[in-house]
């Protein structure tokens, strides 16, 4: 098993490679921001899955088309956030079933997106952990997998999962403290 932490490319470096037509970079960019876009659609705007899927695909289609026009490569996250927000609002307004009064309050959306920004920065910090920690924390917290299924997938005893999670959280906290930057300000 590989235990080394990944060397993580900055957002700006990744965007630059995408602009050069590097398909691998585009795949990585989608992977990096897919949870963020998805969470804005289903958590901040509470879109049903079918609408969320349309927004999700449209965000990345437009991002692909307009990436060359992005003025600041390091601003990809807020740019995607704004794009997602705009498309979610368009979707809600276009849906006959939604009354104007049903639209989420802008302040609620702002708060929700700020929380997602913090969560995304934390997710980025996971990249600084060994592979096994990243995998366990992601499967348990983000994918909501049971101890048993994690144990089967990673071929480790189920009885050790809880203690591994605890140790990995300690490592994650150390990683964050090493960065010495509040989560919402990190990234890029």
């Amino acid at each position, binding site marked *: 098993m590989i235990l080394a932490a990944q060397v993580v490319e900055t957002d700006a470096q990744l965007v630059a490679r995408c602009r050069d037509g590097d398909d691998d970079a585009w795949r990585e960019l989608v992977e990096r921001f897919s949870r963020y876009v998805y969470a804005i659609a289903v958590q901040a705007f509470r879109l049903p899955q079918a609408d969320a899927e349309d927004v999700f695909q449209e965000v990345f289609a437009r991002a692909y088309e307009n990436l060359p026009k992005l003025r600041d490569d390091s601003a990809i996250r807020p740019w995607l956030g704004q794009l997602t927000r705009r498309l979610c609002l368009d979707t809600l307004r276009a849906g006959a079933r939604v009354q104007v009064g049903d639209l989420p309050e802008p302040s609620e959306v702002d708060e929700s997106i700020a929380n997602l920004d913090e969560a995304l920065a934390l997710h980025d910090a996971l990249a600084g952990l060994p592979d096994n920690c990243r995998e366990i924390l992601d499967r348990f917290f983000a994918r909501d997998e049971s101890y048993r299924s994690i144990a089967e997938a990673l071929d480790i005893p189920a009885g050790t999962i809880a203690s591994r999670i605890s140790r990995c959280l300690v490592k994650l906290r150390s990683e*964050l403290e090493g960065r010495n930057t509040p989560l919402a300000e990190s990234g890029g």
Partner: protein
Amino acid sequence: MHEYDEETLSNLLRTLPAPPQAWVQAAQEIPLARRGLDDIVERARADQAFRDALIADLERALEGAGFESDPALAEAVRTRLSL
């Protein structure tokens, strides 16, 4: 500076669930789609002769259909059609 206790970290990790893998894959294939992936797959499903040609020699069949040599596109066609 935040206090990142175990509960805070756990809650933040839960905040970003993974979207369905098919959505991610479709978005990742946007560059390939722009280069004709969807058209190729659709044609291969509708045209048995074209599909047979792809199976026999994928790269040559794609070039014969007017697509420039593109290993990433060829690999995506192979995957989508289970060749």
